[in-house]
């Protein structure tokens, strides 16, 4: 009798531990599934859904420019998943991608600094970052992880927005895409879930003199046109970084892109090294969980 009581309580204890451990990402998973559902519904038939999702769009915008029936995996292409004209131009540019030299430069850096092999034995890691480090209580983006590795080995940290760091990330992203890796962001503790929630709150908070949230453009506003650009959806935003932007005439990291978005909102951007940026990227990357890593890539 005693034995069975002990067994039952041990089983209950183990079960509850598993439940709690598995539950840290419960809210994030709920958010992600709702976002996927929203995007798939929105772009299933833009003409039919005009009143609900595109009230200010012209019929020409919808019928000529927006794609129909966009499915989950296609969202890895950002705005080119939904913009017909943009997609054609994108496919032309992809025939001779402008970032190939950056991948080679990244590979050279990986070989030149031998300690990178110790920090990142498998270079196909682009889909695993940002990670939450329970020891420091901070989110570690890939950019932060590279700089941490450099500093730990007596080197100065690199600029977090472009240059060498973007090249190395391009190599990691190319290796990840080659290996068929998918975005796989983990939330394994209460502190990690809290960091995710902070990032989510900032993403959906209206800010700056234009009083815009990131979501105004990239959730509710996705697929709507600003001048001649169709706003890209949050789903799939982080899968293809670092990107070669025609506007930049070069490669840039996610941190660089976020800084640009904040400027557009009308506020003084946070530093790329800030916890704010890292937590924002943690939330954004989680939203793309399950999508294939598709970087480096090219964007207008």
């Amino acid at each position: 009798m005693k034995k069975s009581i002990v067994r039952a309580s041990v089983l209950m204890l183990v079960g509850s531990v598993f439940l709690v451990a598995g539950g840290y990402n419960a809210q994030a998973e709920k958010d992600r599934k709702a976002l996927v559902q929203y995007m798939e519904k929105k772009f299933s038939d833009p003409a039919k859904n005009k009143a609900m999702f595109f009230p200010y769009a012209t019929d020409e915008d919808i019928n000529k420019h927006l794609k129909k029936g966009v499915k989950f995996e296609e969202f890895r292409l950002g705005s080119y998943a939904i913009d017909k004209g943009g997609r054609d131009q994108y496919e032309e540019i992809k025939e001779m991608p402008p970032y190939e030299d950056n991948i080679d430069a990244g590979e050279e850096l990986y070989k030149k600094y031998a300690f990178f092999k110790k920090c990142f034995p498998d270079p196909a890691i682009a889909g695993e970052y940002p990670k939450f480090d329970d020891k420091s209580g901070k989110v570690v983006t890939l950019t932060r992880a590279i700089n941490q590795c450099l500093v730990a080995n007596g080197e100065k940290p690199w600029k977090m927005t472009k240059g060498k760091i973007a090249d190395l990330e391009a190599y990691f992203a190319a290796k990840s895409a080659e290996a068929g890796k998918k975005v796989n962001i983990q939330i394994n503790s209460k502190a990690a879930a809290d960091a995710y929630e902070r990032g989510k709150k900032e993403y959906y908070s209206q800010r700056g003199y234009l009083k815009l949230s990131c979501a105004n453009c990239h959730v509710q506003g996705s697929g709507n046109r600003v001048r001649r650009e169709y706003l890209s959806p949050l789903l799939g935003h982080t899968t293809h970084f670092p990107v070669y932007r025609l506007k930049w005439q070069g490669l840039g990291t996610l941190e660089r892109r976020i800084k640009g978005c904040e400027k557009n909102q009308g506020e003084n951007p946070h530093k790329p090294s800030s916890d704010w940026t890292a937590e924002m990227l943690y939330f954004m990357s989680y939203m793309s969980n399950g999508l294939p890593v598709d970087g480096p890539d090219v964007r207008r």
Partner: protein
Amino acid sequence: MNSIKKIATTLGLGLALTAAATAGDAMKMVDEAAKLDVKKVCDVKANGAAKVLAVAEKYNPAAVELGVEFKRLGIRNSVYIKGLKEAVKAKKPEVTLKYKAKGKEKKKTFKTDYAAWRACTFAVRALQQVKEADKTYRLAIPGDGFKF
């Protein structure tokens, strides 16, 4: 050795307490700013540029502290305030702001009253938005407050 440890611990604790106190102060300013009528407190005609600038000077540091300071066309609100101080004191009708954009030194001239109004509204609204976001951000989340 022990005394070094003690000093380090005290310093660390001191720094942590200072940081916590500063964040607490900034949040107090948010609560205070949330109660203001921005059109009234930033009305240059009714209050004068000096008073309006004083409002900007009072609230903008909290916006900087919380990472919500406004920036328009490359000019941070702190730059407006810094440039305005001298112009308002000397009662100059125009103010020339010097700022850096993309690594280059630039300058732009504004009417003093207009710049004072902008600095004030930018400082107050930045903090009011923090308070508003607490109530509104979930309304935009699909599957939470945003129904589709």
